[in-house]
């Protein structure tokens, strides 16, 4: 959608934002985009909000107030819980201090990193950006910044741990964190008292890199974010660019994209079901899923040439037409897949130990899910109708007959079952479309140099684990002025503490298993 930003002004900002949430029901904070708007406006943020009843989306723009060298914005930490990590991300990249946020530490960059990389005046010269050869310094203290009545910035220190706390690091090198996530966990025996997520171990600065690349070049990054949702991520990025440029896609492209997205979703869910079992030490169930995923990858490979990194969508269509055998292979796969899902339940999902391990574990109710921005199957397990495919239909999702799966359990078992049921839905969608792919162009020819008109857009798709969105600010150039991705996993990392306080260490693993986050996606 093209953004038309509301502005409240610095003094009214917090009160107006609170009103938006309490009175107008905009209780889902989709993302916060920090941006350097240029020398005239300076630094600022764009807040994208969704009304969870009408699914209407609005965006609020707030410029930062400059106090000497410092930039400040009032924090919405106490309004939307998901803003905790999002504001820290903005602080990390742009150096905007959020007033009243109790934990203003860097999120992705090292603590001893100097400068604010997404500011336009950031010095990119290699001499200034040497690879550090020392260990990262880490403090037990966090800072909270506030303004006094005289308008002066004062710092309050908070301590993260008590003297007697037993702190265990889960990760960055751990078999069950699905990548290099580090969860600093305060435990009392086996019981969790607090979890502090530490991110950035695979931060590659994609958003910064994209600012100096042409639009076709930026595409290559998305597949490497979450390699299990390569298609979905690419879909979001090409959609936002196509929407900004006003490209009309042919029916054939939309059909093929929908089918590919759903195949990718089955791929993602299969790996989820497998790794969920593996994290609970049921290795056999893991290999059952991997066995069937192999068939799926073969189907996709014949058309795209890739198994993890697909590189299939491009601006204006697809890289290539579908393989001549694609229709037949996909149908064969769908027929093969349907009875197999029951097998995963037989070997793992219906097991009494599995139920004992997952039921009531990592519980998060509907209100908290919305507040923490826990989207995707995890949010739907709490009964939140958050499927982007239904709420903001794209491609041909509004033309096929399928159900949005929601549950009421709000725990890890429900999340597992949502994934199982979504596989059936994806198979239904594919079977409805596969025989009816219309003839037509698979690629709408674009100019050799792609330029996007001025403006700001935000488009999201339903990825395997949640909403994946891309914000694009174009100034009419051949490369984006600012491109920000809303990763699926970042909000999950922020919700961990809420979900798991008072539960067991083993529940941390079980909850991590039932929320399928992939760390490269969350670190970008």
């Amino acid at each position: 959608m093209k953004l038309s930003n509301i502005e409240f002004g610095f003094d009214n900002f917090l009160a107006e934002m609170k009103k938006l949430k309490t009175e107008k029901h905009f209780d889902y904070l989709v993302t916060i985009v920090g941006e350097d708007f240029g020398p005239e406006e300076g630094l600022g943020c764009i807040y994208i909000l969704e009304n969870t009843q009408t699914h209407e989306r609005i965006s609020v723009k707030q410029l930062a107030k400059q106090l000497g060298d410092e930039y400040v914005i009032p924090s919405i930490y106490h309004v939307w819980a998901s803003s905790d990590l999002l504001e820290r991300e903005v602080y990390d990249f742009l150096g905007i201090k959020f007033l009243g946020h109790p934990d203003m530490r860097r999120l992705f960059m090292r603590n001893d990193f100097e400068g604010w990389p997404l500011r336009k005046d950031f010095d990119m010269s290699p001499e200034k950006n040497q690879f550090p050869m020392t260990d990262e310094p880490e403090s037990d203290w966090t800072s909270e910044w506030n303004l006094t009545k005289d308008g002066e910035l004062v710092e309050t220190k908070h301590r993260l741990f008590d003297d007697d706390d037993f702190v265990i690091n889960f990760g960055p090198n751990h078999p069950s964190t699905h990548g290099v996530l580090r969860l600093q966990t305060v435990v009392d025996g086996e019981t969790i008292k607090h979890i502090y997520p530490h991110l950035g171990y695979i931060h590659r600065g994609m958003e910064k890199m994209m600012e100096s690349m042409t639009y076709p070049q930026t595409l290559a990054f998305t597949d490497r974010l979450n390699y299990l949702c390569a298609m979905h991520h690419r879909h979001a990025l090409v959609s936002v660019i196509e929407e900004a440029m006003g490209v009309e896609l042919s029916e054939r492209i939309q059909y093929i994209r929908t089918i590919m997205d759903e195949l990718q979703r089955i791929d993602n869910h299969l790996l989820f079901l497998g790794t969920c079992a593996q994290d609970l030490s049921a290795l056999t169930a893991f290999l059952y899923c991997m066995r069937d995923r192999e068939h799926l990858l073969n189907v996709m490979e014949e058309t795209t040439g890739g198994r993890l990194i697909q590189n299939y969508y491009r601006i204006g269509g697809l890289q290539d037409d579908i393989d001549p055998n694609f229709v037949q292979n996909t149908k064969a796969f769908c027929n093969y897949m349907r009875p197999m899902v029951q097998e995963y339940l037989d070997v793992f999902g219906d097991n009494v130990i599995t139920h004992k391990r997952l039921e009531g574990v990592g519980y998060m109710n509907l209100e908290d899910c919305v507040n923490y921005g826990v989207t995707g199957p995890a949010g739907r397990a709490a009964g939140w109708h958050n499927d982007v495919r239904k709420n903001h239909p794209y491609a041909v999702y509004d033309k096929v007959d399928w159900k949005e799966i929601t549950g009421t359990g709000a725990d890890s078992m429900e999340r597992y079952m949502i994934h199982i049921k979504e596989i059936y839905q994806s198979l239904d969608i594919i079977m409805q479309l596969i025989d009816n792919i219309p003839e037509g162009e698979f690629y709408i020819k674009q100019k050799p140099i792609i330029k996007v008109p001025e403006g700001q857009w935000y488009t999201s798709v339903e990825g395997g684990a949640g909403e994946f969105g891309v914000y694009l600010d174009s100034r009419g150039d051949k490369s984006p002025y600012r491109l920000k991705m809303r990763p699926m996993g970042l909000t999950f990392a922020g919700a961990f503490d809420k979900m798991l306080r008072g539960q067991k260490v083993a529940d941390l693993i079980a909850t991590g298993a039932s929320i399928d986050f992939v760390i490269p996606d969350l670190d970008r």
Partner: protein
Amino acid sequence: MFDFQIVTTWFDNLLRQTLGLGDFWSILIECVMVGLIILTIYALIAMFMIFFERKVCAWFQCRLGPMRVGPWGVFQVLADVLKMLIKEIFGVDRSDKFLYALAPCLTIVASVGTFSFLPWNKGAQVLDFNVGVFMITAISSIGVLGVILSGWGSNNKYSVVSAMRGAVQMISYEMSLGLCMVIAVVLCGTMQLSGIVEAQTGPWKWLIIQGHIPAIVAFCIFLIAGNAEANRGPFDLAEAESELTAGYHTEYSGMGFGYFYLAEYLNLVVISGLAAAIFLGGWAPLNIGVDGFDAVMNYIPGFVWFIGKTLAVIWVLMWVRWTFPRLRIDHILILEWKYLMPLTLITLVVMTACVSLGLTF
């Protein structure tokens, strides 16, 4: 029925009478020989077990398992053992060096100790006390020390958590394990392992048949508790690969790790062997009271019976291992203290009643 005592008596006579050695020398030589044989068999069985487990788990998981080294992958284990032997053993910074080094030794001692009790054949038993059952539980509990000390000594937080889990779990399940053996003792009237097996010879005399319902219940509890005692899935909380990386042996390399690895597999053999010996008749052949059939069965040597039964039990335990997900620590304790323990006690009472009223076969 082949009696292994023929061999041992012949060897004893050879030393004492033919070579004319005194008590001291002949006993010393015999002990050294037995020790060497036990350790060799121990190592060989460990290698076989590793290969067996890899193949069995591969079959459960629609895989082939090791196939490259040698025909059907049989030399894979040799390569693994060689790798483990030549790997560097390095110490951990700020660990308790003494405990760190002691822990694997304790584990292996407990494992070899209990292994020596297995009745391989009639007359082929290294340790055979009149309080054998007590001795087995006593020695096997040394293994818990290995887990605690390694976890405590290696200066690693995962290891400490794992050590505490392991200790709690193993101490709890020892109760059921011991009581199950007591149930067998009630029926057989002896604590000596050879006596227990001897009591199971004859038609329909395997303990699980002789003691019918209470014995079957005891056998099942024995398998569950034994599985927990051997720290294998679904009770592998101490190791808990996906939670605590490798638990108490995270910081061990080379043969330090190798000892834990060996002990884990041999504990599986010991538990299965004991289950086979106590409940399934050990080396006693399957006799049904028909002379012709019994004669054929008796013709099969005892060690074949024993190994066959042990392998069958091992296979069942592996099946469980590769099917079930891991339990959580509180589930494990609830299972033991709220269900298994009371059930075992009831079974013990029922068994005693059955024996005193003569309700056994």
